[in-house]
């Protein structure tokens, strides 16, 4: 046989360095997506709600920032406010009196008022005002002029909720202490006031010049003294407050300027938006699970197409780029849709949150938020699709000749590990941006990684164990249903991880919400106090107690209260602590005004944890005090440490003789610091009395009598407070539910897309089974069993993870006792399992209802 001769002279040269033709790659990406666009959109829809939630929150955040900047002056109502709990001394007075162009002053305190027409009484925040405050914004009243006219005589402005509650009208009368005022107008809003704050402590404005006559401003009354200044236009406020600060600090006075209010309000909203963003981020992370699992299956189905392209000369990098372009494009569409949704939803956020906000929120498209959302959407789509995408590089053209059994995802691939690292980095950095703490971000990321690993391990074990468990004696349907969990192309790991993570996220949110709400639901049993009388002056103490008893009401507790501050902790002042951060003493320890009592024994809600309780002070010896354990932690004090108290001007040195654990949840008079008897008896003090009123009628009658006989005594009806709290909690619960809604919707979409993609894996064999004679009922049962088992196991694992994570959050983040109510958790389990089965069966319906040939042809 004559052999051919190799003639290299006729050889052509191969252009190995062909440049990547991006236009062609785009064209191929578009062509290749043609028959899969609806599926790709379903996959990417899992990020739409996450992006939507974040864009809404970001828009809200940016709009709020702008609004705070625009409205900061009306929040404070003046250029400078100075506030303290006492009358400024002569030196301070000389310093602050000449400030500004215009000046106003206010005394505010809690007091009972009495509606003369219907004899109703209520604890309110009385504000006795003099001057033209507010200088920015107005006291919003009906009628409009009442805001300024009420200062002309014995007139009052009364909060609108109070007016409604007592069915009061303008020109009706109220009694504040000894004086009767005519209601000049209904107060809609005062500077800096929120809907919630007016619900808890409704405001009544009266002219300052009548305060003395009310008889409420006596020694021992807890009055806040505020001074408002309108400064000259060109005056440098920060320079001025810098000069005032040392003296104000020394005298225990605070100041606020438009700038500081801007910062404080901004900080408060940063906390709110941080919490909301984290909830949004959870929705987005759920979406990421959806993207990753969907693209994984998508690429597996594309192996043959990619192998064909590789056969024709497409480079690995080009094949990778074709699908990267496709995923980026779809991600872009998803992100645009999310941004659109988010911009729409942000209109709802102010409605949900308006009661918490002291400003008028403007709603408008925040382009910054929109671009951030779109960018985030693209990053997420690409990042979480990268794992399956990089495996494209390993698809051999040999797949065109025979279906390769090679695993395209190799664990040794360094790029794969780089992507894992990138994903971890992304989650950590993004959670850092939301939480503003590396520690928190690290814990959050590790938590998610652990959840992911647990679910993967459970799925892996399931695959191994089912293989061993399935018995040949079982009926065919059971064997086939269970075998689907471990046979090639099974969906066990992906479905377990995505359903499990969705369940874990949703269930954690739910459990934490339940705990938070449960934490503040106070019980009001028959023997528990539900009415508190305070501001009882020492000479009134016995008379008030007698009056209470005369009304047939029990005295559950009666304690004296003395207000004081701490000047030194172990010889260190606030200034020392500011300078030396290694002391780690909270600065709040020095700024807080302590309400302290003295007694010779412990109450039932207290327990000594270290040291020993000393109930009586020995004359001439150092004073032993008992510190509550959380206070001791903040002040970094232990047994024997020294505290210097400033008791309304008199310095008093004491040492910590015991540390107590206090059950703060019990409604009783609890204290951070308790003095022994024999020290504070002569100090200016007021008394608190706790009683239990059996009904609203008794409560109203008792309050009327007390207010008439002791106008300075204030009464808190806990029933009323509980109503307000309940309303507040409902609103908070609504906000949490509203935000969790995004996670839940995303979870369901991920579930639908996860189960839906598994349909494509099952089509061939279901059709084959039907061809071989399996009835629709049998295939239905096989599918139901597979999804029932997958759904139940994933939901259960997710719930266990949620219980673990919510326990950790409760213990370390919220510092509250933990319990799980089994009923709602059981409902979550049943709903997720059923949802998996229903979606699984709905997806298989198409296969069951059509002749096998039709499906075989359509899948050619």
């Amino acid at each position, binding site marked *: *046989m*004559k*052999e*051919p*001769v*190799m*003639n*290299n002279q*006729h*050889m*052509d040269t*191969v*252009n*190995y360095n*062909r440049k990547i*033709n991006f236009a*062609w790659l785009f*064209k*191929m990406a578009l*062509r*290749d*997506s*043609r*028959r*899969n666009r609806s599926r790709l959109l379903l996959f990417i829809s899992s990020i739409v709600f996450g992006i939507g939630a974040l864009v809404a929150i970001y828009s809200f955040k940016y709009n709020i920032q702008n609004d705070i900047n625009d409205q900061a002056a009306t929040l404070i109502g003046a250029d400078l406010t100075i506030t303290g709990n006492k009358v400024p001394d002569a030196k301070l007075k000389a310093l602050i009196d000449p400030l500004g162009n215009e000046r106003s002053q206010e005394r505010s305190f809690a007091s009972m008022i009495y509606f003369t027409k219907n004899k109703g009484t209520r604890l309110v925040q009385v504000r006795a005002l003099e001057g033209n405050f507010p200088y920015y914004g107005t006291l919003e009243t009906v009628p409009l002029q009442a805001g300024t006219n009420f200062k002309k005589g014995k007139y009052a402005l009364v909060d609108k909720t109070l007016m409604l509650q007592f069915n009061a009208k303008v020109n009706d009368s109220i009694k504040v202490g000894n004086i009767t005022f005519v209601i000049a107008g209904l107060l809609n809003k005062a500077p800096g006031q929120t809907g919630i704050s007016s619900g808890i402590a409704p405001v009544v404005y009266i002219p300052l010049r009548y305060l003395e006559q009310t008889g409420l401003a006596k020694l021992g009354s807890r009055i806040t003294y505020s001074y408002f200044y309108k400064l000259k236009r060109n005056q440098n406020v920060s320079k001025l407050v810098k000069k005032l600060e040392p003296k104000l600090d020394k005298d225990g006075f605070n100041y606020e300027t438009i700038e500081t209010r801007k910062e404080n309000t901004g900080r408060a909203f940063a906390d709110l938006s941080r919490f909301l963003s984290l909830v949004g981020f959870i929705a987005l992370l759920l979406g990421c699970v959806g993207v990753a699992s969907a693209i994984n299956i998508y690429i597996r189905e594309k192996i*043959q*197409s990619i*192998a*064909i*392209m*590789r*056969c*024709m*000369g*497409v*480079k*690995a*990098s080009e094949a990778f780029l074709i699908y990267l372009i496709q995923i980026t494009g779809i991600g872009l569409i998803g992100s645009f849709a999310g941004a659109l949704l988010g911009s729409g939803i942000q209109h709802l956020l102010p409605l949900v949150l308006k009661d918490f906000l002291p400003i008028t929120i403007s709603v408008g498209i925040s382009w910054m938020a929109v671009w951030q959302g779109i960018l985030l959407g693209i990053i997420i789509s690409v990042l979480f699709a990268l794992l399956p995408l990089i495996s494209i590089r390993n698809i*051999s*053209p*040999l797949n*065109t*000749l*025979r279906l390769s059994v090679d695993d395209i995802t190799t664990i040794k691939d360094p790029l794969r590990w780089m992507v894992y690292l990138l994903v971890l980095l992304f989650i950590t950095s993004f959670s850092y941006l939301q939480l503003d703490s590396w520690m928190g971000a690290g814990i959050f990321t590790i938590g998610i990684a652990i959840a992911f690993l647990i679910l993967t391990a459970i799925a892996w074990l399931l695959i191994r164990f089912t293989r061993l468990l399935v018995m040949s004696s079982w009926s065919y349907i059971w064997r086939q249903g269970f075998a689907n969990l471990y046979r090639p192309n099974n969906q066990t790991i992906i479905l377990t991880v995505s359903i499990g993570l969705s369940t874990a996220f949703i269930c954690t949110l739910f459990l934490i919400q339940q705990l938070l709400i449960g934490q503040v639901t106070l019980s009001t049993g028959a023997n528990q106090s539900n009415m508190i009388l305070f501001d009882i002056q020492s000479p009134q103490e016995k008379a008030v107690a007698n009056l209470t008893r005369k009304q047939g009401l029990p005295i559950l507790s009666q304690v004296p209260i003395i207000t004081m501050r701490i000047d030194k902790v172990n010889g260190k002042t606030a200034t020392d602590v500011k300078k030396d951060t290694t002391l780690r003493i909270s600065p709040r320890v020095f700024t807080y005004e302590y309400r302290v009592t003295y007694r010779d024994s412990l109450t039932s809600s207290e327990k000594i944890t270290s040291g020993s309780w000393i109930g009586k002070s020995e004359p001439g010896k150092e004073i032993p005090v008992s510190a509550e354990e959380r206070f001791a932690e903040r002040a970094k004090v232990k047994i024997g440490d020294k505290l210097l108290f400033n008791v309304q001007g008199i310095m008093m040195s004491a040492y910590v003789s015991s540390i107590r654990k206090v059950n703060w949840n019990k409604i009783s008079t609890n204290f951070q610091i308790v003095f022994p008897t024999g020290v504070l008896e002569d100090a200016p003090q007021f008394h608190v009395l706790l009683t239990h009123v059996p009904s609203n009628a008794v409560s109203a009658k008792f309050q009327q009598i007390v207010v008439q006989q002791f106008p300075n005594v204030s009464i808190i009806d806990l029933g009323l407070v509980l109503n307000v709290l309940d309303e507040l909690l409902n609103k908070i619960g609504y906000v949490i539910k509203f935000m969790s809604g995004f996670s839940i919707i995303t979870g369901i979409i991920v579930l639908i897309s996860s189960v839906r993609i598994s349909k494509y894996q099952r089509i061939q064999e279901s059709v084959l089974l039907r061809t071989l004679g399996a009835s629709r009922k049998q295939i239905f049962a096989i599918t139901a069993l597979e999804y029932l088992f997958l759904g139940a196991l994933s939901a259960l694992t997710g719930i266990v993870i949620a219980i673990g994570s919510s326990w950790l959050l409760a213990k370390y983040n919220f510092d509250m006792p933990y319990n799980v109510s089994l009923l709602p958790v059981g409902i979550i389990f049943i709903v997720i399992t059923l949802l998996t089965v229903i979606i699984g069966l709905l997806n298989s319906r198409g296969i069951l209802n059509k002749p096998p040939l039709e499906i075989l*042809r*359509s899948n*050619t």
Partner: protein
Amino acid sequence: METILNIQNLNKTYKSAGRVLTVLDDINFSIGTGSTNAIVGPSGSGKTTLLGLCAGLDSASSGIVELNGIGLGNLGEDKRAQVRNQYVGFIFQNFQLLPTLTALENVMVPLELRGEKNIKARSQDLLDKVGLADRGHHYPAQLSGGEQQRVSLARAFSNSPKILFADEPTGNLDAETSEKVVKLIFDLNREAGTTLVLVTHDLELAAKTHRIIKIKGGKLVADERTGNE
């Protein structure tokens, strides 16, 4: 006759369940430009593996594969892809058309990859030659098996390959359609002066080529001229 494909001491082994499985054992042959050749053998004899190695779809465990003077053994997968794009055409038993591309687009892909001009008209011409001028806008799922294989033929010739590899090109077709497709393959091959290497069970089809290479148990057992020169 010049050589287009040169195979020397070719071996291919796989590791399976901890032991080494030899699929091809010391294969040697050369193929001349413009010739038609058939690789035949029973199922599992290694003929498809041999085709994959010759076409640069896989790399050998040892030995030399030279295609148009280029040693494929030293090239990475991406460089082999370039060689395939420039010199090789493929026809598969199960057609292997891209399901999301129309018939015309499937034919255009190899030319687009090379960045050539006037692609659409040339591809349309090729579809015309295989008798599918009016089916260019149809997707593979809308075509019969025979039509799909004809699109596959048009695609295989679109980049004017020097060598055409066909893996059981009639394996999925009925007798009548097979006959038409085989005629087309040989006609187009002759017209373009392409070298043809086909893997088949069908001895009748093999007999239409110039040369039959027989493989059994991974070894070359016979290399015969058919007399169809």
